[in-house]
C-alpha cells in the first residue's frame, strides 16, 4: 500500500515538475513570440525611416534654449530684433542686443569668431573660421553668392535660399529677407518681456531698490508685469491648471455624490427588488464601458468645448466606477453594527446613518481621493480632446511645432500638478481616515 502510494505521489510530483518546467519555458516563449509579432505589426523596421531626427534635435535643443532673430527686410532695409522672432518678444524701438554693433554696417557677432555683416544694398558677409568669406547679394527674389560648388553639409544653397547652420547660430538668406538666429541657453523673457521696465533688473533691486517705474510700486508692478507676460502667458497657464484641477474635482465629487445613493440600489443587502438591482448594475457597467472618450465626444456636441464638458465626462464615467466600488463595499458591511444600532430602536434612516455610513466612509474617502489624483491626469487628457485646461495649451503648443520651450514648461507644470495632487490626496487621506499601517 505505502509503496504504491509513494509511487503515485512521486509520479504526481514528477508530472508537476514537468508542467512547471514547461510553463517556465513556455511563458517567456509566448511573450517573445508576441513581441516578435508586434515588432512586425507595428512596423518597427520602417520606423527608422519615418522618424524625423531633425525634429528630435530641434525639440531637445529648443526646450532648454532660446534664439534671438536679427532680421533684415530686404525690401525696406529695415532691421528688427526679436526673441524667438515673435512680435511679443521684439526689442523696443532703438534698443538691440549688445552683440549687434554698427550703424551703416550692422555687425552681428555670433561668438567663436562667427561674424555676420549686413552691408548696404542687401549684401551680406559671413565670416566663419576655416572657411573662405561668404558674400551674398540679394536681388529681387534671387541670390548671388561666391559659394563654391562642393559645399560642406552644414550649408544648403540654391539660388533662392541659403541656409547655414553653425554651432554658434543659424543664418538663412532669401531674396526677401536675411535672418540670423543666435542661440542662448535658458528660457528668455520668462519673467518680464522686453517692454517691461523690470526687464534685466536684479531681484534685489526690484525688492529693495528705488522705484523702477515711477507710477507703480516695485513689487506690485513686477508681479503684474510677470503675471501679464505676453510671451509666457503666466496668467492663462495658471487659469488652465486651475481649470484642469477643477474638472477633476467637480467630476470626482459629483460622481461620488451621484454614485452613493445608486450604490445602495445596487447592493443586495439594501435593495430587495432584483430587477432594480440588476438595472442599476447594468447602468454602471454601461457608463463605465462607454468610456470617458466617447462621453467627451458626445458631451462636447451639447455643451461645446470647455472645462464643464470635461468635468461631466469624468463625472459620468466615474459614476459607474464608484457605483460598482460602493455597492461592493456595501455588500461587505458588517451586519453586527447595524444590529447593534437597531437594538436601540433606531429607525431605518438612523440605522443607515449610524450603522452603515461609519463603516463605509473610510472605503469611500480612500477611493474618492485616489480617483481625484488619477482624474487630474485624465482631465489633462480630456482637456486635450475637448479643449480646456492645460491639456489644450499643451496640444496647441505642440501643434505649432516651434515653441518647444513652452512645451517643456507645460510638461514640467503638468508633472508638478499631478505630483501635487498625489501628495494632497495622500495627505487628506492621512488626515481623514488615518494612516494605513
Amino acid at each position, binding site marked *: 500500500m505505502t509503496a504504491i502510494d509513494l509511487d503515485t505521489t512521486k509520479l504526481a510530483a514528477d508530472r508537476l515538475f514537468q508542467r512547471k518546467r514547461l510553463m517556465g519555458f513556455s511563458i517567456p516563449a509566448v511573450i517573445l513570440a508576441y513581441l516578435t509579432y508586434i515588432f512586425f505589426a507595428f512596423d518597427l523596421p520602417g520606423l527608422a525611416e519615418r522618424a524625423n531626427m531633425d525634429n528630435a534635435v530641434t*525639440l531637445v535643443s529648443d526646450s532648454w534654449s532660446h534664439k534671438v532673430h536679427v532680421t533684415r527686410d530686404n525690401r525696406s532695409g529695415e532691421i528688427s530684433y526679436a526673441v524667438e522672432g515673435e512680435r511679443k518678444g521684439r526689442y523696443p524701438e532703438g534698443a538691440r542686443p549688445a552683440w549687434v554693433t554698427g550703424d551703416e554696417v550692422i555687425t552681428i557677432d555670433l561668438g567663436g569668431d562667427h561674424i555676420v555683416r549686413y552691408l548696404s544694398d542687401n549684401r551680406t558677409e559671413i565670416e566663419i573660421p576655416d572657411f573662405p568669406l561668404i558674400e551674398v547679394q540679394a536681388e529681387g527674389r534671387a541670390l548671388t553668392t561666391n559659394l563654391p560648388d562642393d559645399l560642406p553639409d552644414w550649408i544648403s544653397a540654391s539660388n533662392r535660399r541659403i541656409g547655414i547652420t553653425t554651432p554658434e547660430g543659424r543664418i538663412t538668406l532669401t531674396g526677401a529677407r536675411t535672418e540670423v538666429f543666435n542661440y542662448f541657453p535658458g528660457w528668455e523673457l520668462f519673467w518680464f518681456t522686453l517692454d517691461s521696465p523690470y526687464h534685466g533688473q536684479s531681484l534685489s533691486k526690484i525688492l529693495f531698490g528705488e522705484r523702477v517705474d515711477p507710477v507703480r510700486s516695485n513689487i506690485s508692478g513686477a508681479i503684474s508685469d510677470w503675471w501679464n507676460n505676453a510671451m509666457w502667458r503666466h496668467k492663462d497657464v495658471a487659469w488652465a491648471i486651475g*481649470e484642469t484641477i477643477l474638472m477633476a474635482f467637480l467630476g470626482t465629487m459629483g460622481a461620488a455624490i451621484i454614485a452613493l445613493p445608486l450604490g445602495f440600489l445596487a447592493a443586495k443587502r439594501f435593495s430587495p427588488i432584483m430587477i432594480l438591482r440588476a438595472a442599476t448594475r447594468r447602468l454602471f457597467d454601461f457608463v463605465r464601458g462607454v*468610456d470617458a472618450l466617447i462621453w467627451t465626444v458626445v458631451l462636447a456636441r451639447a*455643451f461645446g468645448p470647455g472645462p464643464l464638458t470635461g468635468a461631466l465626462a469624468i463625472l459620468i464615467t466615474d459614476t459607474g466606477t464608484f457605483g460598482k466600488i460602493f455597492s461592493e463595499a456595501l455588500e461587505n458591511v458588517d451586519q453586527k453594527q447595524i444590529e447593534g444600532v437597531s437594538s436601540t430602536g433606531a429607525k431605518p434612516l438612523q440605522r443607515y446613518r449610524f450603522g452603515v455610513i461609519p463603516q463605509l466612509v473610510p472605503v469611500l474617502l480612500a477611493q474618492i481621493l485616489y480617483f481625484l489624483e488619477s482624474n487630474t491626469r485624465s482631465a489633462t*487628457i480630456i482637456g486635450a480632446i475637448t479643449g480646456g485646461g492645460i491639456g489644450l495649451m499643451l496640444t496647441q503648443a505642440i501643434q505649432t511645432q516651434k515653441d518647444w520651450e513652452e512645451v517643456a514648461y507645460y510638461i514640467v507644470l503638468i508633472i508638478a500638478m499631478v505630483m501635487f495632487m498625489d501628495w494632497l490626496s495622500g495627505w487628506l487621506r492621512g488626515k481623514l481616515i488615518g494612516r494605513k499601517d
Partner: protein
Amino acid sequence: MVDISLSGAPQSVQTIQSSYMAQVQRRRLYSGLTLLIFVILMVSGFNIADDRNAGGFWNGLHQVGDYPADVLSEAWKKRADLPALMVKYFPALIETINIAAVSTLIGAIGGLFLSLLGTRGLAKWPRLIPLFRRISDIMRAVPEIVIALVLIFVLGGGPVPAMIAIAIHTAGALAKMFSEVSENTDLKAVEGLSSTGATWLQRMLLGVLPQVAPNYVSYTLLRFEINIRASAILGFVGAGGLGYELRNAMAWGPGRFDEAAAIFILLFGTIVFFDQVSSRYRNKLTDGQTH
C-alpha cells in the same frame, strides 16, 4: 480612596457628559463647516466651469441626447451595413488592443524592476532606493498624452508613440502598486537563497516573485483594462487604432455616422469584454490567496 471616588463620581459623570456633549457639538460644527466649504466649492466650481465653457450647461442640457440620437437613427437606417463596417474596423480594434497589451507587458516588466529596486530589503543598491522611487513617481505623474504628442512629432503618427507613452506611465503606476505588495513579502526565503550564494536576480526570481505573483498579475490585469481605454483615447490625438478612426469618422459628420456607430459599438464591446474577463481572473487570483 472610596470616599473620594464616591463624592467625585456624580461630578465626574456630569463633567464627562458635558465634555462629551461639547465634543459632539464641536464635531458637528466642524463637519457642518466642512460640508459648507464643500458645497461652496462645488457650486462656485460649477459656476466657473460653466462660465468658461463655450456652451452653457442649462442651454446644452436638452441637447445632450441630440447627437447620440442622430448617430443612432442614421446607424439604424443603415443597419444592414453595420456588420461590414465592423469587419472593416476590426484591424483598427486589434491595433488598439495590441497597443494596450504590449504597453502593459513592457510596463509591467519595467514596473517590476523599478519596484524591486525601490523596496527596502530587496533593492540591489539600497542607497539608490530614493532615486528609483522618484523615477517611478515621475513616470507615474506624466499623463500618457504628453509623451504621446511629443513622440508623434518625432516618430510620426502610428501605434509606436502611444505604446511607449502608455508603457512609461504603466511602469510608474505598477511600480508603486508592486512595491506596496513587495514590502510585505516574507524575507526569509530571500535570506535562505542568499545563504546559498544566489545572485540578486536569482533571489528575486526564486524568492520574491513566487510570493507576489498573484497580486502582481492581478494589478497588471487591472492596468490592462485601463490601458485599453488609454490606447483608444491616444488614437484620438493621432496615435492610430480605433480612436483615430473614430475621430476621422466624426470629423466627417452626418453621412458617416454609421461608421462612428460601428466604432462606438466595437469600442464599447471591447471594453466591457475585457473588463469582465479580467475581473473574473482577478477574483480567481485573489481568492486563491486567502486559501
